[in-house]
């Protein structure tokens, strides 16, 4: 038990409740889409699979493929080249330079992007333009991108979207810390579920159990999430302003870059395959990201970011002289020598994304994230349902039901748009946005029309269930592989996600059929409030 005075407990309980109620609707959207985004790679593979499963950069043949592509793009675009394994194993190869888009002030990238087949290295797709235009043209990543961008920025323009999600992360941190402090009997509440009591007390117990078990994880996710949002939105620009006179590129060059004296003398590029083989021999790992600066010049630099070895969270970068192929140094991701800043920086990504132990850690992150979404939703429903007879609170209770059950419906509908759009010959990304907005408007209309909140819950859950049940058949009808083909090709992700969606759809339908719970009288207090009063 945490010893707090009644006054303190009351204050913390008020902060806990209000932080959730004020920002809970949006926080729920960010957490739910974050849960989905944990499986962004798998969603990419499910929605746009290749005929085989391949998730690593090939160690042979990249050199020839790079030279072939470099010879056919604008020479300005070989200033910077990168490779990494992207959606369903496609090798995303970006030949680009840096510039400022007309009418904008922030520097960005412009160039040509190729999707290469990971086995044959044949060109699967070619896109050209500014970075944001390339992003819009990337069809294989469309569905995963939709969920990830909704999670990261709520599809709001930068930096506003990042600022909003950063603030939501701070609210989640406040809710988790105060949730921890207001527990009168922390250990006992980890296991208390009074099944035979009033339905609202049962719900309150379920909220507390899920929330209590989830507290450390919620704190970690909130901390790392707000770090990621604020870093891009204003932390890096602010520090760049103070320490580097506003020059963000200089900041990144200082922190990440390798200092090489400029030398524009043309020079043949060394063999990339040999560098990849050397890096593997030195570290035992394969390269996950390849970056080449100043291709075809005497000052060319190759940076290989190695995949972490089994049991490790992070790895080093290996630097090579691009003109000679000679190994230069092995360095941390940030700075030239090990540092606290680098260690903290490398911890943030695995802690937030949960991909440090493959599918198993992702499954744990998914489960804990799902519990977080459940806690947020039940917290809002408990808070508002008990006050729904008071003016104002009834509308918030309705809004909580609308968001809680309408958002899953809109998200499920997006996957239907992803597969229906090519059949109807319409732009996939535009169709996804339109469907999401359409489904959200439909949920709004239903929320305004259906007066009874439990009936509203059941209608929206049934709609979500139907959309989820339709996703797998529609994927197949739009030209995706069937289960036998997928099994033969080793595409386990395709089958696993189909089965998961069918199960989730069936569970939603079953939940929609469940009877209406009875609510507690509005003047009856929950234990924390009773003890704090």
């Amino acid at each position, binding site marked *: 038990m945490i010893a707090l005075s009644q006054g*303190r407990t009351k204050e913390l309980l008020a902060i806990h409740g209000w932080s959730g109620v004020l920002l809970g609707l949006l926080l729920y959207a960010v957490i739910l889409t974050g849960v989905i985004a944990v499986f962004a790679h798998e969603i990419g593979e499910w929605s746009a699979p290749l005929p085989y499963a391949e998730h690593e950069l090939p160690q042979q043949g990249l050199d020839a493929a790079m030279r072939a592509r470099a010879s056919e793009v604008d020479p300005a675009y070989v200033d910077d080249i990168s490779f990494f394994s992207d959606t369903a194993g496609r090798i995303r190869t970006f030949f680009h330079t840096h510039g400022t888009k007309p009418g904008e002030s922030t520097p960005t990238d412009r160039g040509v992007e190729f999707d290469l087949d990971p086995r044959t290295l044949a060109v699967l797709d070619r896109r050209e333009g500014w970075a944001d235009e390339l992003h819009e043209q990337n069809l294989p990543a469309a569905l995963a991108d939709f969920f990830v961008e909704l999670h990261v920025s709520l599809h709001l323009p930068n930096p506003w979207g990042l600022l909003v999600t950063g603030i939501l992360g*701070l609210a989640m941190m406040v809710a988790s*810390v105060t949730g921890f402090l207001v527990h009168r009997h922390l250990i006992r509440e980890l296991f208390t579920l009074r099944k035979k009591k009033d339905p609202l007390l049962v719900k309150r117990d379920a909220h507390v159990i899920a929330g209590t078990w989830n507290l450390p994880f919620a704190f970690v996710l909130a901390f790392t999430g*707000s770090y990621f949002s604020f870093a891009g939105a204003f932390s890096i620009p*602010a*520090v760049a302003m103070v320490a580097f006179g506003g020059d963000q590129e200089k900041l990144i060059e200082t922190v990440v870059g390798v200092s090489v004296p400029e030398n524009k003398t043309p020079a043949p590029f060394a063999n990339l395959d040999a560098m990849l083989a050397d890096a593997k021999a030195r570290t035992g790992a394969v390269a996950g990201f390849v970056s080449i600066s100043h291709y075809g010049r005497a000052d060319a630099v190759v940076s290989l970011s190695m995949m972490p070895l089994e049991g490790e969270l992070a790895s080093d970068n290996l630097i090579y002289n691009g003109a000679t192929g000679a190994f230069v140094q092995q360095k*941390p991701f940030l700075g030239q*020598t090990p*540092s606290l800043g680098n260690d903290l920086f490398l911890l*943030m990504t695995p802690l937030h994304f949960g991909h440090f132990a493959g599918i198993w850690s992702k499954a744990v992150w998914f489960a804990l994230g799902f519990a977080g979404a459940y806690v947020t939703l039940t917290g809002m429903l408990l808070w508002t349902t008990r006050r729904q007879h008071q003016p104002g609170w009834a509308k918030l209770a309705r809004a909580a039901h609308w968001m809680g059950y309408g958002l899953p419906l809109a998200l499920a509908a997006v996957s239907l748009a992803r597969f229906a759009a090519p059949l109807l010959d319409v732009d996939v990304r535009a169709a996804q946005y339109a469907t999401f907005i359409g489904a959200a408007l439909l949920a709004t209309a239903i929320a305004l029309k259906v007066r009874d909140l439990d009936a509203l819950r059941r209608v929206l859950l049934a709609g979500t269930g139907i959309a989820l049940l339709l996703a797998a058949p529609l994927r197949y009808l739009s030209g995706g592989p069937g289960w036998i083909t997928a099994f033969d090709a080793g595409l386990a992700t395709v089958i696993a996600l189909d089965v998961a969606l069918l199960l989730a759809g069936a569970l939603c339908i079953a939940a929609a059929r469940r009877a209406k719970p009875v609510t507690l009288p509005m003047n009856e207090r929950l234990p924390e409030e009773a003890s704090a009063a």
Partner: protein
Amino acid sequence: MTTLSVAASSSSRRRAWSRGLLAGPVCFITAAAVMAGASLWYPQGAAQINNIAVPIIVFPAIWAALFFYLMLDRKLGRAWLVAGVLLFAHAALIGQHLLAVQAAKSAAAPVTEGAAP
């Protein structure tokens, strides 16, 4: 309602607004100033990057610590004072640094202009 209770209610409302302002926008701006200012006083370390990376990474922790203090300190005036001192100290540090950078640029400028044809 008596004059006394109206005055008490009005004072309580003012305190609530003051607390909200302090723990909301003032807290965020102060935390941002501490983060940006820390890049000037936090040790660089052997890798020369700790003063840049660490404040950016721990910004949510700076904000959270400040938020809970400003929200829970019973003496509202003291909370305002702490936030004010932190904000102005870091703003002054940043201002002084930027002025020094500007002065260095200005000192270098006449040489460049003189060299131009």
